[in-house]
């Protein structure tokens, strides 16, 4: 009996510990961050973080975003790097979200100014679901986050399972082309990038999947694309109505005029803000790409 009581007591203790503040989490820069109470004012110092906050209905807590954010309902804090610490300080945030390694130096500065920082850096679909849950925990919304992540995951796996059943040689060969006009530099996604994973999950074969660069992204020569002759070319656009121009940019490369993708008109514009941002919107992208790859039914 006493033993049972003790177990009960310990369990109560643990549950209090787990379910209530203070909470300590390890962020993606490997820093332990402790939250004494539920944060009420949040600065999203990178557009990526904003999506997670919006998905968890936390828009009323966002007090600051960068000028690159598509969410405009909060105070503008300027650049991602260098970060405007003065501006952030006046917003009195309980936590500042930063993204990736390129803001790592800024994290240090923010901390010196006495701000609490939580850095996220999702690089795979699993990372994205984990980040969603972490942010849910921080804002005492872990149940909602878990549910959301479960739904997204099953949506993704529903497509992915269908795609896995397609034999490799029947899958479309896909090339992602982000063309920097003027320099003719072409960036693409390789091994280790989330977009490579997105293409694979949607049932495509990324022609640059065997190569890699910083965070999985790399520049690629035009001739390589000719030799691989992809079936589909994905190209990003960055504003509504920019789709036509993006397609035109791909078509303007003379060397590529004989590619299967171009002859068959399989140049697919994709939202540049989504493909450059590892967040939950990628699940919908996977669904969309699957439909594009296998439109007209499985052959």
């Amino acid at each position, binding site marked *: 009996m006493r033993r049972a009581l003790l177990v009960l007591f310990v369990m109560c203790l643990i549950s209090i510990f787990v379910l209530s503040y203070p909470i300590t989490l390890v962020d993606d820069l490997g820093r332990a961050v402790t939250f004494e109470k539920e944060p009420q004012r949040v600065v999203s110092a990178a557009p990526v973080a904003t999506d997670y906050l919006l998905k968890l209905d936390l828009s009323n807590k966002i007090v600051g975003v960068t*000028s690159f954010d598509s969410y405009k309902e909060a105070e*503008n*804090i*300027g*650049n991602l*790097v*260098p*970060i*405007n*610490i*003065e*501006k952030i*300080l*006046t917003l*009195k945030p309980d936590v500042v979200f930063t993204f*990736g*390694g*390129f*803001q*790592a*130096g*800024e994290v240090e*500065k923010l901390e*010196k*100014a*006495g701000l609490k920082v939580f850095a996220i850096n999702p690089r795979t679909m699993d990372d994205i679901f984990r980040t969603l849950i972490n942010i849910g925990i921080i804002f005492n919304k872990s149940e909602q986050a878990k549910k959301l992540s479960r739904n997204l995951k099953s949506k993704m796996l529903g497509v992915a399972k269908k795609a896995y059943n397609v034999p490799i040689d029947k899958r479309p060969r896909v090339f992602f082309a982000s063309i920097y006009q003027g320099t003719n530099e072409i960036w693409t996604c390789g091994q280790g990038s989330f977009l490579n994973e997105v293409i694979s999950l949607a049932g495509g074969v990324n022609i640059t999947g065997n190569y890699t660069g*910083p*965070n999985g992204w790399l520049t690629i020569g035009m001739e390589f694309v000719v030799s691989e002759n992809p079936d589909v070319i994905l190209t990003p656009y960055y504003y509504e109505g920019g789709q036509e121009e993006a397609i035109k940019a791909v078509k303007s490369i003379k060397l590529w005029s004989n590619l299967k993708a171009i002859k068959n008109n399989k140049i697919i514009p994709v939202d540049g803000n989504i493909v450059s941002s590892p967040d939950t919107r990628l699940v919908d992208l996977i669904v969309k790409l699957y439909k594009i790859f296998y439109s007209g039914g499985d052959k």
Partner: protein
Amino acid sequence: MKGILFKGRKLILPFFALGIVLFLILNLSFGSVHIPFHEVLLSLIGKKIESVNETIILNIRLPRVLVGFLAGASLSVVGCAFQGFLKNPLADPYILGISSGGAFGAVLAIALQQFVGWKWFSNMETMSFLFALLSTMITYFIANNKGKLPITQLILSGVIVNLIFSSATTFVIVFYWRNIANSTFWLMGSLSGVFWDDAIRLMISSAVGISILMFFSENLNAMSLGEEEAMYLGVNVERFKLLNFVLGSFLTSVIVSTIGIVGFVGLVVPHIARLLFGANHKISIPTSALIGGVFLVTCDSIARSLFQPTEMPIGIITSFIGAPVFIFILKWRLRS
């Protein structure tokens, strides 16, 4: 006629210093967040004001203005000394490639931090200093023509060294961009996010560097007559050149590893100082320091207020002001 403002220097200098202090305080009220001037004054004398504003003034803007002042002062003094001992009016840490060497060292150190355990090789300041010194030496040896440093040759070799190290910096950044904050920071400089530890480090290095150069101002005078003349005046020329290279690289590397590359300050300011106060290094070194400090603080205030809340790299502002002066000096010198 020594210089426009030289007459009665004993009277002018205290006012000059007081003016600078007032000017620095005035700059504390500029920035992306508007803070009224009287609040700045209150917080400086220790009175309580709204806590956020107090943090901004005492922990962000005060060290920032100090770092700006010290960096401007040091760069200008290095420029002044280099122009003197190389007998070349266009010498400056940026033109000679010292800054890009230092930046490359700093960036390389950050990149190496994940591979090399040995602290010495991954210490940013040390690497920055070593590469600053290396780039100085390379520039000097390319330009050196039987002990003479022709103006054009010095600039050309500086351009080459600049190119080499800027490309190398970009190369490292492309390969390790997850670890390296931002290429514009290293290539164009920014005072954003400097704190008291940076200010204290710069205070020590500037105090040491500037005072040593001030003690050697007579040797700089002698060197500006030519190396042989300096020798006949008892200057140990080779040793003095080495001292200048080491000291210049040291000061530049400390600045570059704190605020990135800031161009043209060391070029423009000494000319202004000489115009106003005369060529004698006993006076042009300290006045270069003061004018350079004020110049960089002003540029930083412009950089952080012009397109607020976004901050501009400070190097853009200094280049806008410095490049035309550079062209003017080059034209004027090549003609005479």
